[in-house]
């Protein structure tokens, strides 16, 4: 077990180092620096010098690289070239909690609903309820989320006026984006839960349970559902990570000031260092979360540490 943890740890650290290094050299290879980016403004010689020292551009590249890595180890993700004074950390502190709240709400909504729909579809196989749920999950998997977001906004906010159209002010404002973000995940989970439930029905232990004379409820609850959920656990951790990082699209459409919509804005305004700083943050977050998830599953299921 110790060997397994150590190996995962080394892989994670190398991955983070690769992401950081690649992004550092990329920013320096790209044409443009804080001085040329702001070339539209007239800069005095003094301002120019101050900017150069501010970003450390007067030092040799390797020294800049080491400083960058050192800053990263202290949790400092860098600065915007476009808007001097704005740091990636400041933006993360401002926007990430909002994305995290949205993601967490969507996650908490999608888990019970996905399982419930999957169980209903499998129990009512071939009946109307099954067809409705299968159609719902097929649509949920094949409609891109920005279309879904636009449609829900149109129907429930603009036409029916049940919810506010956009912005992020009260819990009431969070309902529609949460539903939008959760729907795709509910659809996916319904689909896999239904398939797993139907596969398990033919297992020998279900026959044994029936032969023992267990009640139908007991068979479904303690044999079928429990065994169907197990293979889905590994995906659930990663899904939480994905949702916490916020859906760029949902935030963009509902004008939510989360990390995703800020990322899109940075791309559109060609703020390279900000884009890469946020990307590095995103990368580190995902890699760390994967590491934690791997360790937990290694602890829970000994087969995983052997096969990996």
């Amino acid at each position, binding site marked *: 077990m110790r060997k397994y943890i150590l190996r995962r740890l080394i892989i994670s650290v190398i991955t983070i180092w690769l*992401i950081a290094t690649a992004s550092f050299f990329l920013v320096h290879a*790209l044409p443009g620096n804080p001085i040329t980016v702001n070339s539209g403004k007239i800069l005095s010689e003094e301002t120019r010098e101050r900017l150069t020292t501010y970003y450390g551009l007067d030092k040799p590249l390797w020294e800049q690289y080491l400083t960058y890595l050192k800053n990263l180890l202290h949790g400092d993700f860098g600065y915007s070239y476009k808007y001097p004074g704005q740091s990636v950390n400041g933006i993360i502190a401002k926007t990430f909690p909002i994305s995290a709240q949205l993601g967490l709400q969507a996650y908490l909504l999608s888990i019970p609903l996905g399982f419930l729909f999957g169980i209903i579809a499998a129990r009512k196989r071939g009946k109307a309820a099954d067809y409705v749920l299968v159609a719902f999950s097929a649509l949920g998997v094949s409609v891109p989320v920005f279309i879904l977001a636009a449609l829900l906004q149109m129907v429930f906010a603009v036409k029916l006026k049940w919810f506010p159209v956009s912005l992020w002010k009260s819990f009431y404002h969070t309902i529609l984006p949460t539903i939008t973000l959760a729907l795709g995940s509910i659809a996916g989970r319904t689909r896999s839960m239904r398939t797993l439930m139907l596969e398990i029905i033919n297992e020998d232990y279900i026959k044994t349970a029936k032969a023992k004379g267990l009640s139908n409820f007991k068979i479904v609850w303690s044999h079928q559902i429990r065994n169907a959920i197990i293979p889905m656990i590994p995906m659930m951790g990663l899904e939480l990570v994905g949702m916490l990082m916020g859906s760029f699209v949902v935030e963009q459409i509902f004008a939510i000031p989360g990390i995703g919509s800020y990322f899109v804005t940075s*791309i559109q305004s060609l703020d390279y260092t900000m884009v890469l700083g946020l990307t590095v943050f995103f990368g580190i977050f995902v890699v760390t979360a994967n590491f934690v998830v791997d360790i937990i599953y290694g602890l829970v299921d000994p087969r995983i540490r052997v096969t990996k």
Partner: protein
Amino acid sequence: MEANKKSIITAADFVRIADKEKKKEDIVRPGMSYWANVLRKMVTNKIAVICFIYTMIIIGFAILAPILSPYNYDTTALTEGNLSPNSTHWFGTDTVGRDLWTRVWVGARVSLLIGLFGSIVPEIVGILVGGIAGYFGGWVDMVIMRIIDVGICIPSLVYVTMLMLFMGAGPVTIILALALTGWMGSARSVRGRIMQFKNREFVLASRALGGSPFRLIFKDILPNIMGQIVVGITSGIPQAIFMEAYLSFIGMGVQSPMTSWGQLSQTGVNVFRIYPYQLYIPSIIISLTILVFYIFGNCLRDALDPKLGN
């Protein structure tokens, strides 16, 4: 005794088995190769045929519609902006007066090509790398698998962002990004299958006859895992189309005046509260196409599975 008699076996001693008798041993059903069987299963599957026809129609329109249309996909006509669908502009026009019928089908070319190459290119790279790792084993395998272990941890958005900053946004960038993220998964699974097969008798026989590693991997082993590869490519197509739509939406994909289904939907979202048709048309086509590819992929998976029905 008979044995003492001098007997010569003559032709008359042999009786020709009646043709009838012989026919009993004929093979009634014509032999069917694996692929002929797959084809037969697909042709008899109504859903698969419908999906195939839909795909052909979409491809046909993508090729012909822009040629036959009197409008150009990037010619603007500001006086004819935001027209609803009518007899001259079948899908209406966008904000700067470009004909949406033409744009949707030009976009279809881009989206479908991204779908196709975005799923084939990573698969081919995966087969090459996975094949080499699985066949040679040892340190080659070790190095390749460690690279994959690390590379697969990097979120795909990181690749896309870096590529986009470096090469600029566009279809080629999207395909490259898909290739960069996709090859690792398929290399892993191809490697696993190659390792299963490389010690089988027919591979050993080929090696004893002096077959080169290239021949052993690609001529002897690969045909056996072709089914898995075909499924990989078919299920990759909708994923690639989805990815293109998503990237174009957040501004990292296809840029105007060039267009794609994702780019059209993005423009549609911006104006859809006033001109909803500009979102509805591209979104219905994207969703339907992705759905059809998913269903077709599932049918193909069932048809390729030798355990399922004959």
